């Protein structure tokens, strides 16, 4: 299984992702934003951070990085793609996922652990999860308020493309959405950070299942 972890200028969670997969016995490879060939990758992670300093809008500039053409091609041939936090913002800006991540409702940069609930097991990320299962994941963002037009929102719900919901909405996201996927279920965006879930004794068990979902 070949896992690529894309690094934009300002990305800062890439080592957490590589470390998390290492803990699961898998090797993930860092890929530079100027890289143009991802044909070797079966799974691609866009990790969190402040890509391009979050200039303009988070993810707005990263989506024009050369590597994004390779990510789009990979998605088209069926590779699993996961955007975490800033990576979710990049996938939305790139049009691989619908909607946008606005500034949090309320005034705060959020840095805490929140409860999430599995809404659908139809995505690669949640294929090993039980619908209705609840667990904790850390969040760390200022722009995580998921916003989309009403028609698309209805479609997402009807097609089972809302993958995770916050149990208590921390940031004003429509329908408390914490993660969504594309129609194939193979491109997933997630605001919380599974790669940082857990503590001194390693990744939490639900976070392990999430991350393993990406690789089959």
């Amino acid at each position, binding site marked *: 299984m070949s896992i690529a972890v894309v690094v934009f200028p300002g990305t800062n969670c890439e080592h957490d992702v590589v470390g998390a997969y290492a803990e699961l016995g898998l090797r993930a490879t860092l890929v530079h934003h100027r890289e143009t060939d991802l044909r070797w990758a079966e799974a691609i992670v866009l990790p969190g951070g402040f890509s*391009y*300093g979050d*200039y*303009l809008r988070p993810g*707005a*500039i990263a989506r*024009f990085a050369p590597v994004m053409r390779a990510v789009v091609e990979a998605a088209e041939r069926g590779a699993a793609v996961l955007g975490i936090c800033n990576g979710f913002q990049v996938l939305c800006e790139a049009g691989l996922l619908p909607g946008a991540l606005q500034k949090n409702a309320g005034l705060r940069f959020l840095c805490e652990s929140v409860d999430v609930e599995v809404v659908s097991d139809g995505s690669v990320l949640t294929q090993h999860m039980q619908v209705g299962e609840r667990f904790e994941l850390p969040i760390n963002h200022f722009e995580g308020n998921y916003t989309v037009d009403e028609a698309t929102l209805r479609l997402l719900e009807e097609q089972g493309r809302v993958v995770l919901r916050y149990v208590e909405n921390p940031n004003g996201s429509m329908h408390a959405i914490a993660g969504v996927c594309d129609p194939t279920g193979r491109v997933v965006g997630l605001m919380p950070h599974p790669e940082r879930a857990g503590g001194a004794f390693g990744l939490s068990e639900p976070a392990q299942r999430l991350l393993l979902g990406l690789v089959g």
Partner: protein
Amino acid sequence: MSSGVWSALVVVEPRAGIADPEGRAITDAARHLSLAEDATVVAGRAFRLRLRAATRDEALRQVGALAERLLANPVIQSWRIVELEGVSAPEEPSR
């Protein structure tokens, strides 16, 4: 005092000589897009204000005071009023 409602657009831009890293990043992205010939971008802020004032001069004074004291930081930014127009319906109830 009878007073009308005014709508103003204030634009805040980095002062000449002040670094504009955001504008440079956007300029680089624009060039990757090949949508415009040699475009350069300066990044600023726009603020749409609605306020009550008896006269156009009074509206200008209020907008200027807000721009100078709140919307712009004069150390690094300049501001100007791009639009100012009277909005009808001075009788509308305040929300």
